[in-house]
């Protein structure tokens, strides 16, 4: 045990001075925040953030005025033009003065149909145009039926959705509260994979320059591996803590009410799952790294195996849409996918208690077995010379009593 702590301390102090680690811990979140800020800024700027300049051909004779009004509200520009034939429209679009040309036919009221010519189509654009035209048309029909503008206003009022959580009564925190647990889950998964890859590099380095022989003449292979795993786990914790603190500070500044989403039992459970996730990732990385000849081969083929535990990320849409559905459940009970899947599920729902108990038990057993296997393969692999072992050889090692 003592040896494990010695190695852990050494790896931790070494890791915390590692340039990649420092960069990803401090610079990466800043870059992410900047990108998020930029995206948020542009999405608040109307349709896709760009000004829409439309050419409108109004053959009804009554759409021009209300359209002009609505567009002005949204800071869009529209010219009302008169053109004959498709060729002329094509030429106009080629001139790139207009983003699109809207053709409103005479029989709009009867057929509810317009034509939109475009250079580049965005669904936001058409959604917006549809909404505006529909509103104008509905208003017009209602006026023709003899309703007054006030009546129309109350007849066509949109339904507003206020969000309110039942669990606690801190009022309307909206989307931030929903996204927060997900962001937390993602952050943890990312941190684990990052320190997992630094672990991989450190093992390969010790193997390829044979420091491992001196170390293994002082302590057991198991102590070395466990110490490394522990050291990098601590590194992950520090990293998550730094990010979390920074995130909470930002949150506290902008939306203090959403903070309660972080201080929940769920967050604690996530930490439990991510801890097992780390053990699994680290064990896999230890097996891979010890079977590699050098860092170059470490990056090539190993990538596939390293990525297995985050496969559920690719299923994050179905999992989040249906956190207690079939896909979510099946993935939850495959130990290698359990941590990531459960993190995603926890972030949007509350899985049944029995599922939480069973998956954690499953993780305890499987990560123990995986660590046993990893420390055995690690010992054999670390002392191999020259070549990168293939899967067949690794299986042979796993079966051998000793080497």
């Amino acid at each position, binding site marked *: 045990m003592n*040896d494990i702590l*010695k*190695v852990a301390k*050494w790896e931790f102090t*070494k890791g915390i001075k590692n340039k990649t680690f420092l960069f990803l811990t401090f610079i990466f979140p800043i870059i992410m925040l900047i990108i998020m800020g930029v995206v948020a800024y542009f999405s608040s700027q109307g349709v896709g953030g760009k000004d829409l300049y439309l050419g409108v051909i109004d053959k009804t004779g009554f759409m021009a005025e209300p359209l002009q009004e609505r567009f002005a509200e949204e800071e869009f520009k529209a010219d009302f033009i008169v053109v004959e034939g498709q060729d002329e429209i094509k030429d106009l679009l080629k001139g790139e003065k207009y983003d699109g040309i809207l053709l409103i036919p005479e029989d709009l009221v009867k057929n509810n149909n317009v034509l939109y010519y475009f250079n580049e189509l965005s669904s936001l654009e058409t959604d917006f145009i549809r909404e505006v035209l529909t509103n104008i048309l509905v208003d017009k029909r209602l006026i023709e039926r003899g309703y007054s503008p006030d009546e129309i206003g109350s007849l066509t009022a949109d339904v507003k959705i206020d969000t309110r959580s039942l669990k606690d009564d801190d009022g309307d925190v909206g989307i931030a509260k929903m996204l927060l647990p997900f962001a937390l889950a993602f952050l943890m998964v990312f941190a684990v994979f990052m320190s997992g890859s630094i672990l991989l590099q450190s093992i390969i380095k*010790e193997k*390829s*320059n*044979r*420091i*491992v*022989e*001196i*170390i*293994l*003449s*002082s*302590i*057991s292979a198991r102590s070395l591996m466990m110490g490394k795993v522990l050291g990098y786990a601590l590194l992950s914790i520090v990293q998550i803590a730094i990010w979390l603190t920074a995130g909470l500070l930002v949150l506290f500044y902008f939306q203090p009410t959403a903070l309660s989403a972080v201080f929940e039992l769920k967050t604690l459970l996530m930490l439990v799952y991510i801890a097992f996730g780390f053990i699994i990732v680290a064990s896999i990385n230890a097996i891979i790294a010890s079977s590699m000849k050098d860092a170059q081969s470490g990056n090539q083929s190993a990538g596939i195996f390293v990525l297995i535990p985050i496969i559920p990320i690719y299923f994050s849409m179905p999992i989040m849409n249906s956190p207690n559905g079939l896909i979510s459940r099946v993935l939850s009970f495959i130990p290698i996918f359990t941590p990531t899947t459960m993190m995603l599920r926890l972030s949007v729902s509350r899985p049944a208690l029995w599922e939480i108990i069973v998956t954690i038990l499953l993780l305890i057993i499987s990560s123990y077995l995986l660590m046993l296997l990893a420390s055995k393969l690690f010992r054999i692999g670390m*002392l191999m010379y020259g070549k990168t072992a293939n899967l067949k050889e690794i299986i042979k090692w796993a079966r051998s009593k*000793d*080497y």
Partner: protein
Amino acid sequence: MSNIILQVENINKSFDDLKAVDNISFEVNQGEILGLLGPNGAGKTTAIRMIMGIFQPDSGVIKYDREYIIDKKKIGYLPEERGIYDDTRVLDTILYFADLKGMERSDAEEKAEVWLDRMELTEFTQSKIEELSKGMQQKIQFIISIIHKSVLLVLDEVFSGLDPVNQNLFKDIIRELADQGMTILLSSHRMNMVEELCDRIFMINKGKRVLYGGIDKLKDEYGIKLVSLKFKKEIPGISSLSGNSNISGIEFDRDSLSFKVNSNISPLEVLRMLPDNVEIDEISINKPPLHDIFIATINKGVSGR
């Protein structure tokens, strides 16, 4: 009877089809320096790794100070392939390895200072290892292997890559450690160093033992002495020598002569073999250097197959 610190009994080790170590046995006594010799690929490093507890032998027993289980804290090891962290500081690295051997920090700091001074590396105490030359890095590794008070010290190819000055420095230190009672097993290809340092040697070839014993005794058993003579005047005739069955490998020049003679022939008898009228200027009769024995033994092994 002296105290046996390391006892190797009939150990075997195979890798797939290759028999790397084939039933070898030897022992090292306390305060003794045993040289482990053999050509490249003979099985030296495999044997050392089994002794270090890095590999398990397929069969056979290794005893350490009469214990069957190695106490890794009591053993010092300098592996053949020199590897060391490059992005850490000299002192930190030494202290880490001392820590793994179970040394107290204050003790380790004190010893590290002494050894860095001895190796003339004091000014690099806080340098990163990658800033050091290859030779300096090797000194750091040597310090790491000897800093804790080990009972058994195993040095694999300790002199490789060192310049003559540092070879002598290492040699002096190894001698001192043995004098202080440390038991040392060393492998090297520098036969002159082995000859100067080791009490006994164990020579291995193709996994098998080919020579084992005290250096002087092995030289006697080798059965040949080297005679070389220098004369004041040109030699009139030495044809009488070539007929002698005790003599071989005669080489002569205008005023010098050398030949090999069976080792049961005494120096006096050698002199009597020479013609009466020669005027000898210099004469030496030596046991052969280890180098010759090494090469002859390996070649014999090759032709014997």
